[in-house]
């Protein structure tokens, strides 16, 4: 088990945004977490990378309890997140954004990233805020890859992108998974996510209501109705 959460809870003041969920990701898997707006997906990912504290529950990464790790210690252990809304450093150049990704390792060669994302190489001296939305997402992913992750958490990488770019980003995610990186993918676009992933979790108002193989979920009548926009046949 690469990542294991048990009874994970996140509270914001009096609001229980995540209500004691169980979630596990095995080495080499591509797992998706789908759910409506406000279901608690982002809160779950943030709690896993310690960006926000969890109120209760157990959190293990490679067998190690990470519930009290500081945020910045996790990339060094191979756990990194591409945050919702990309979170690129808009006033830094593409090159500098990538350098921050390598910061935890004390530096690193951006060449492999430029090879996968030729667009970024062309724009490496450009300030990241001037990139297009799709390019920014590529940069956010490339920056996370600079940490040489074992487990990559992706929070809605397709957000705000045109269909063609969405397809491209999903292709990139598939390629990263093929290279052996374990991925936990949060997506609004449930169909694409389930077609890509091996397993999935469905989250509703802070709780996991359904889990199974991607194939099963794709054929589940409740999922089809609620997330794939289909009437029940």
């Amino acid at each position, binding site marked *: 088990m690469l990542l294991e959460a048990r009874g994970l809870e996140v509270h914001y003041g009096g609001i229980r945004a995540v209500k004691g969920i169980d979630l596990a990701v095995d080495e080499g898997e591509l797992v998706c977490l789908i759910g409506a707006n406000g279901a608690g997906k982002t809160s779950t990912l943030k709690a896993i*990378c310690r*960006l926000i504290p969890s109120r209760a529950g157990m959190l293990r990464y490679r067998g190690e309890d990470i519930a009290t790790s500081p945020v910045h210690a996790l990339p060094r252990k191979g756990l*990194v997140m591409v945050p919702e809304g990309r979170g690129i*450093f808009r*006033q830094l150049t593409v090159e500098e954004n990538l*350098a921050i990704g390598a910061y935890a390792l004390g*530096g690193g060669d951006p060449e492999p990233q430029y090879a996968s994302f030729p667009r970024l190489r062309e724009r490496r001296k450009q300030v990241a805020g001037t990139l297009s939305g799709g390019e920014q997402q590529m940069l956010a992913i490339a920056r*996370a890859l600079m940490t040489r992750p074992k487990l990559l958490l992706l929070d809605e990488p397709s957000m705000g992108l045109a269909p063609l770019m969405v397809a491209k980003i999903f292709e990139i995610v598939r390629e990263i998974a093929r290279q052996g990186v374990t991925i936990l993918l949060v997506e609004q676009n449930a169909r694409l996510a389930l077609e890509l992933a091996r397993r999935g979790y469905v989250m509703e108002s802070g709780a996991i209501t359904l889990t199974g193989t991607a194939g099963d979920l794709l054929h589940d009548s409740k999922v089809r109705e609620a997330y794939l926009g289909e009437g029940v046949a």
Partner: protein
Amino acid sequence: MDTFLQQLVNGLTAGSVYAVVALGYTMVYGIIQLINFAHGEVVMIGAMVAFTVINALAPGGLPPLVVVLVGTACAIPVCMLVGYSMERLAYRPLRGAPRLAPLITAIGVSILLQHLAMLVWSRNVLAFPQIIQNTTYTLAGASITSVQIAIIAVCIALMGGLALLVYRTQLGTAMRATAQNPHVAGLMGVDVNRVIAATFVIGAALGAVAGVLYGTYYGVAQYTMGSILGLKAFSAAVLGGIGNIPGAMLGGVLLGLVEALGAGYIGDLSDLCAYGWIADLMGEQCDGGHFILFGSNYQDVFAFLVLIVVLVFRPSGLLGERVGDRA
């Protein structure tokens, strides 16, 4: 004409010191949006430590330059420690608190350091031992001293070094990333607390040198010297656009120049007897004399006046741009 050149030289000297102090304000503001009012006191402590060391070594017969260098070398680590401690003990526990809390704390730290300095160095104005042979060079009607040249050169070197650090090193990149978005910087493995502490320590080191330069230049040091110097340097940072590093450099130099030119001309400009019709009105009071409304002691007012005027037209300072998104 020579007044102009002379005040240019004087202004450049004072301005380059302001610029180095302003960097300490702007770097801290840039990274945690805190106006560290206690930074002026760090500069004062730098001057005081150097004073003590120089005073102790002066009679020893060492070359004067060595004495001043040793004084500076002692002031720097002391100030770095002060800078680190204030961040660690006073500001870090308030991270995430409403902005007013650290601001008030900064004022408190400033008062605390001032009074500690008073206990250690007394209330008296301390005369910096004038051990350096001050050669004066004449240049197109203006004179420039070797100390002035040294001050300007040191400040340029410090600013250049800082620019290299901030724009060319990994730590500098991490500082700028943290300034833009500390959460994401942390997610990428940057230890944000360490980067913030480093920012304080670097600012304090610059402040230490500035304190020594200031003390050497004006020949005096006192436990209160940090307030007005700090206020001016802070104004310089705001003038250039607070949070903006080149802005602090520009603002500091500009403030020094404006202040010096203002001081140089305000007497002549406000001499009522120089204006024919007023002189007529004033009659015998002006017979062969002057009636100067504002003397050069108004130079501080002049500097702040310019600050206000600039802020009216460019609220974010000369080089500052409103950073819209901190996503």
